[in-house]
């Protein structure tokens, strides 16, 4: 089976044991996943990774940086790849720490095939969802950026549910002008209703002034 040149997803495996690395690769490939192997965290960071839904199978016991510290490092660097930890002898505090930091699963070796495949699938799904959500925000951000300064000023009041008259009073312009701004910004943002606009404003994290 040929690996697609432009994969729909990719599973990264970091383990210092070449044999285990290859075995995991073989197993994951056998169900049609694209796999990339690394023998250290440093190697992973140096690599150019495809911008597709992905997840990371990470051995807790890594030479140099430990798996858990590596996880912290990734979060700090804004790398949002879901992590599945594998370990020879995991203990509870270790797994709790990993899960709190957002790990998908904490599996002990030898791995149960199904546990691993389920975890990998979950990781990919979560990454896919995150990517889509990220995409939406980016789109909204560019729409918001296309608003004029006055429209950006008005949008917060509109989203707060204020009437045109009130907004006019607040910022010292005529009610007619407010009405024009409102129409423009609804159009530019692609909001079908006021409720739609409120959701967009919240997604973007724009402040909604309350009277």
């Amino acid at each position, binding site marked *: *089976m040929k690996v697609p040149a432009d994969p729909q997803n990719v599973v990264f495996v970091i383990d210092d*044991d070449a*044999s*285990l690395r*290859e*075995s*995991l690769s*073989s*197993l994951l*490939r*056998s*169900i049609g996943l694209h796999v990339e192997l690394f023998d250290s965290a440093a190697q992973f960071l140096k690599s150019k990774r495809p911008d597709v839904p992905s997840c990371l199978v990470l051995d807790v*016991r890594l030479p140099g940086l430990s798996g858990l510290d590596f996880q912290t490092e990734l979060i700090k660097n804004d790398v949002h790849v879901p992590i599945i930890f*594998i370990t*020879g*002898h995991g203990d509870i505090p270790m797994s709790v720490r990993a899960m709190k930091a957002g790990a998908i699963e904490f599996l002990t*070796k*030898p*791995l149960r*095939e199904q546990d691993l495949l389920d975890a990998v699938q979950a990781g990919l799904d979560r990454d896919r969802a995150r990517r889509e959500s990220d995409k939406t925000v980016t789109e909204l951000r560019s729409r918001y950026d296309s608003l004029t300064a006055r429209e950006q000023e008005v949008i917060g009041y509109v989203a707060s549910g204020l009437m045109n008259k009130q907004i006019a009073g607040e910022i010292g312009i005529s009610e007619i002008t407010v009405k024009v701004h409102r129409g423009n910004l609804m159009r530019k943002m692609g909001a079908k209703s006021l409720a739609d606009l409120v959701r967009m404003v919240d997604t973007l994290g724009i402040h909604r002034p309350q009277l």
Partner: protein
Amino acid sequence: MPGYARISRSAQLCFVTALWMIGTSGNAVQAQDRVPRVLLLYPYDNTPVASTISGETARKRLTERLNGKVQFNVDFLDLLRFQEETHRQQTARYLAEKYANTPIDIIISLNTETYRFLQSYRDLFAPKVPVVFCCVMRSFIDATPGRPGDITGFITDYDITKTIELAERLQPKARNLVFITGASPIDQMWHQMYRRQSAPFQSRFNVSFLNGLAYNEVLRRVSQLSPDSIVVLGAIFVDGEGRQLVAYEFGAEIAKVSTAPTYAPIDTFLGRGIVGGHMGTFEDAGIEVADLALDVLKGTDPRSIEPHSSQAQRFRVDAKQLARWGMSEAALPPDTLISFKDPTLWEQHRNSVIAALAIMVIEMALIAALLLQIVRRRRLEQDMQVAQSELARVTRVTTMGEMTASIAHEVNQPLAAIVASGNAGLRWLANATPNLEEARSAFTRVVRDGHRAGEVISTVRGMFKKNAQTRRPVDINQLVREVLALLNSQIANNDIVVRSSLAEPAPVVPGDPVQLQQLTLNLITNAIEAMAGVTDRDRVLRISTQAQGSEALLDISDSGYGIEPQHMERIFEAFYTTKTHGMGMGLSICRSIVLAHGGRLSASRGTPHGSIFHVVLATQEQA
């Protein structure tokens, strides 16, 4: 005189003034730039009798009081040996010549005889030189009137009444009173005095006088006295046969042979056999007369001083004689001075006793300090031992844990790879179009990783063999004791009874002490854990050591539920465990250790319960 060159001018002035005053008082002392000269007149010779004691004391006293600024001249008149009047005259003339150019400032007379001599002849050799005297019997003063006014001093009242009073207290049943005196004129004076003073006692006692008898006669008579007699001695300078005697020596002789207690009012007799008496001391008499001489030298007119009684008199007894006659101290008058008491150990060796006590106290203090230190050190040592045992235990357990963790990881990696590869291979084959190439490489990895896991185990075994060169003699009994000490709290917490029977002498094997400790620790820990669930019987841990030929046997048994027969075959295999939380490495390691020492490890079922682990180790180094 170099000594006087050192006197300060003011002191010299004072002294000159004092001498001038003496001069103007009409005495023989002239206001001259010299120290006072004292003439000590001794009645007899230089044998240490009463007068020599008084004289010597007086001389010391004056020297002391005048800071040495006094000069003494001494003359022994020998009046006992030569009693004729011509001797006295010759002596007086001799003295006159002797002191013609050496003026005397004061004369000290030391007893009745010198007093008598001075009364007659003073003006021949020392006219107008004042005389101070001591120890003159009152009876003599009374008997010889015409004392010149510048001859004065102390009269000794020989109050025999008080001496007899003392005797009556000590001998309440006494009926006879015997007085002994000698034949010399002074002895006769004593006899007269006794005769006079004994008059009041005539009614109560048969009074008799042994006066002027021969030496042997006196001794014969006193040796036949009845015990209810009181013997009073007086002066005995010459016996009835004209023999000159030293009074106290004869007194001692009498007291020795007397069959009744003897008494005397004379202190030179005390300590030589008499029980006691009412008496002064000749030392006190010397001091009295010296002080009087000082007064006169300082200008007091001797004519203004009437002779008076010596004050220093009291009851005195000899403790040894009280004991000899079985007399009680309780009967003595209240202020009696008891002499010659056998000094107690304390009195005799006061300083030695104090020193000895001090040394003992110091020694005890040192011993106490040392004991304290020892106790403290022991405690510290114990604490340290506990800490060391704890450390050792932790180290063993940690080493054990780390080792098994490490082994587990090393074995787990290939296992994980085998499982993953196996799963992958199956999936490659299960695909709609089976990928045989991927499947083959997956199964190749399975085989490879299987071998890898086997190598890990060999490595573990090799690890133990590697340490074979660190062998040294290990005392198996000691080993057992150490491990039991390590597991002490665990044994106690689990209510386990330990029954150990250790062979004597202790079997000793060549080995690695750390590994053998690990072995014993593992086996005993296993035994303890095997009894964890036992509630219906005692939890008994039996440990025995034994020497058998060239082998040492160590058996460790428990009273647990034992090992099922089907497990028995496999318990020594690695990763085989019947415990919920076991790694299955313990017994495997144990066997590796035993094998590395060229020994054998086996297990058997115990009767009626539990299991027994048998360790057999060679007591000789294996080739």
